[in-house]
């Protein structure tokens, strides 16, 4: 039985002692007219009705029998019409429930009448019923859309209609074999989709309105079917990576400067094999990468913030296979650069550093936007290479001159570094979008929409095509000895995402092809939402050996 039905049933059967605490402080009023009618009726029924008692005697005898017969006929007619009305109502209700289920709408605490009213309000496109907006907002739930905020007290039908279009753009029905990967705060980026549709996601749960985490959960799923979850009470998971046979998880518990860092190893069945706390290993574990060491064990890379110097450095934290702390190293601060990714390279590591925001926009060192720092197993810097040799061009100018490459992942492949990402247009002044700002990628689209006044004129299909033209997924190979990047593979209308090595040593590249995009000035503060389809490209050496439409759909948000 549904929880709501149990609550109603409990209220139906409640005894007076059980209601005392429940009703404490809760009052209800009624209208003055109803109060008068109630009093009059109660007095009548209890024999204190006065003159009204005399009036009742008029209806005794035959007149009363005639009235009773008439009432019986009326009830019979009412029963017939009532039966027909019941069947019709049941069909509408059934259609409404099916509509809710098909569109992922939350019924929550809605009554039967309200469910039907929302259904009719949306399907007739009137959007005037006061509960429709609440249902859509509640159902959108964890797929939060930046700027998609309507005031429930002041939402015009056009706004609610636009919100519904946005909601369906993200929640369009899935085709056969398709499944949607989503979760709390998940934006669709950084997903490693393995063979057989296996992927991992993490979520943080909070108690009520508290900002302290109740627990974090790492989940393993296969095509949206949850296989297992591993929970960490009172913790926040800050990073995880799957290796052959295990997953390494990092995170924190506690708050602020007293936060304790931890790592845990989870085996293939979801069992937490071991866990270790590290005191305050890093002042913050941001931008984490986890690499497997050549001699066993792991190295965790992250940003380290020095509160006194107000600078960021890159930290390396080495742990054994059993997660025992081995050593910590903080790389020398490279002014103007911050840690982005790290990957195993040879017997050591390669660390990608990106310029801080104030160094963008054509300032001095325009070519020094991305730097690869090579580190040996002991944490010593052995070399560093700028990714672009062109002093005037944007980074990794391997594509058209008016586009730049946004890096999203990095891996060693065939003795070289392989970068996954996508190209987007440069700004009108030739400036490169801030790599930390996803929104900057669509600035050109928004500008052209408003300058042409066409923001309301695009059909869904045309707008999707416009957004697809903004993105080209690219796989780039970088030979550190030659310091030359080379475009390896590209896919129009897509965003390059994660890279991993499969069991047979081939390189798998996940790219997200934009399948729907929606924009509405009524509901969004210059944001675009939609969905993408995940495609897996498999490379053996330099050769493309397979392309797999995985069936996985992920949210697209900018």
């Amino acid at each position, binding site marked *: 039985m549904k929880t709501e039905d149990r609550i109603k049933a409990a209220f139906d059967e409640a005894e007076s002692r059980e209601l005392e605490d*429940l*009703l404490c402080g809760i009052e209800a009023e009624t209208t003055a007219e109803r109060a008068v009618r*109630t009093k009059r*009726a109660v007095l009548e029924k209890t024999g204190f009705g006065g003159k009204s008692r005399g009036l009742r005697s008029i209806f005794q005898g035959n007149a009363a029998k005639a009235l009773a017969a008439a009432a019986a006929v009326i009830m019979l007619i009412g029963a017939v019409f009532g039966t027909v009305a*019941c069947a019709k109502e049941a069909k509408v209700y059934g259609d409404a429930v099916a509509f809710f289920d098909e569109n992922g709408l939350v019924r929550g605490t809605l009554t039967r009448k309200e469910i039907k009213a929302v259904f009719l309000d949306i399907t007739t496109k009137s959007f005037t019923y006061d509960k429709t907006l609440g249902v859509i907002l509640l159902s959108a739930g964890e797929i939060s859309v930046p700027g998609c905020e309507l005031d429930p007290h002041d939402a015009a039908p056009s706004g609610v209609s636009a919100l519904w279009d946005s909601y369906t753009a993200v929640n369009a029905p899935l085709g056969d074999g398709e499944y949607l990967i989503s979760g709390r705060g998940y934006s669709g980026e950084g997903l490693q989709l393995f063979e057989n549709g296996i992927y991992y996601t993490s979520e943080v749960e909070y108690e009520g309105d508290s900002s302290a985490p109740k627990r974090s959960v790492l989940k393993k799923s296969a095509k949206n079917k949850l296989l297992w979850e591993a929970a960490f009470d009172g913790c926040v998971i800050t990073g995880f990576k799957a290796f052959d046979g295990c997953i390494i998880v990092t995170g924190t518990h506690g708050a602020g400067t007293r936060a304790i860092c931890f790592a845990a190893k989870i085996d293939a069945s979801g069992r937490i094999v071991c866990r270790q706390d590290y005191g305050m290993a890093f002042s913050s574990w941001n931008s984490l990468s986890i690499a497997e060491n050549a001699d066993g064990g792991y190295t965790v890379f992250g940003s380290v913030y020095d509160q006194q110097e107000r600078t960021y450095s890159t930290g390396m934290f080495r742990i054994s296979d059993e997660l025992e702390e081995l050593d910590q190293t903080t790389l020398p601060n490279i002014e103007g650069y911050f840690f982005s990714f790290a990957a195993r390279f040879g017997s050591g590591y390669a660390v990608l550093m990106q310029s801080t925001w104030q160094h963008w926009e054509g300032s001095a060192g325009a070519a020094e936007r991305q730097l690869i720092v090579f580190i040996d197993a002991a944490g010593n810097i052995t070399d560093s290479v700028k990714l672009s040799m062109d002093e005037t061009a944007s980074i990794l100018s391997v594509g058209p001159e008016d586009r730049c490459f946004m890096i999203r992942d990095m891996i060693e492949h065939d003795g070289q570094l392989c970068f996954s990402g996508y190209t987007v247009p440069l700004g009108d002044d030739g400036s490169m979008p801030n790599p930390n700002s996803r929104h900057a990628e669509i600035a050109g689209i928004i500008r052209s929409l408003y300058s042409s006044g066409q923001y309301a004129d695009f059909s869904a299909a045309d707008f999707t095509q416009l957004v697809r033209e903004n993105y080209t997924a690219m796989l780039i190979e970088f030979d550190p000895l030659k310091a030359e990047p080379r475009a390896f593979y590209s896919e129009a209308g897509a965003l390059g995402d994660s890279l991993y090595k499969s069991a047979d040593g081939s390189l798998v590249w996940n790219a997200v092809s934009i399948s729907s995009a929606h924009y509405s000035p009524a509901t969004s503060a210059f944001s675009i939402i939609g969905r993408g389809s995940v495609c897996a490209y498999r490379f053996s050496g330099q050769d493309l050996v397979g392309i797999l439409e995985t069936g996985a759909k992920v949210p697209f948000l900018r």
Partner: protein
Amino acid sequence: MDDRTLAELLRSDPERGLGELTRLYAGLVYSVVRGKLAGVAGNSDIEECVSDAFAEFYRMLDSFDESRGSIKALLCVIARRKAVNVCRRLMREGTRSAGEPGDDQPADVPSPEELSIRSEERRALLSAIAELGEPDREIIVRRYYFGESTKAVAKRLGMKPSAVDTRAHRAVQKLKKKLGGEYED
């Protein structure tokens, strides 16, 4: 006026006592009855049920013991049970005064063991609702006991309707989690 004084007034001056009783609790009893009969019966049936509840309370006044519960709670119990009976009667007759069919079906007669289990579960659930904290407790009572709309609850509590919906949804999930067992979504 406290319960003892009201009970004494009802005994000594019934007409005045009933006037006071209905003045104090007509709104509450109406809400409790409407929470069950809205969509099943029309206003006339609802008001009929309300006045029946007051009349029944008056008839059992001699056995009222304030140590066992307040007049407020007892009136609500009587009112809800009357409303349940009216609902069942209307369902059997297939008569609808207004609105649409309700969700209830006549229940099969439970065995003593089933009754005992149901009582335990009911006590646990109601206790859990009482422990929800504010404003969740009041939201659940008003939504499921009084049958008030989100808008009405929001207005009463000075909250946004969307916030009321969200809190109600979360409160139900909390109850579901707390009580476990075979609670469904």
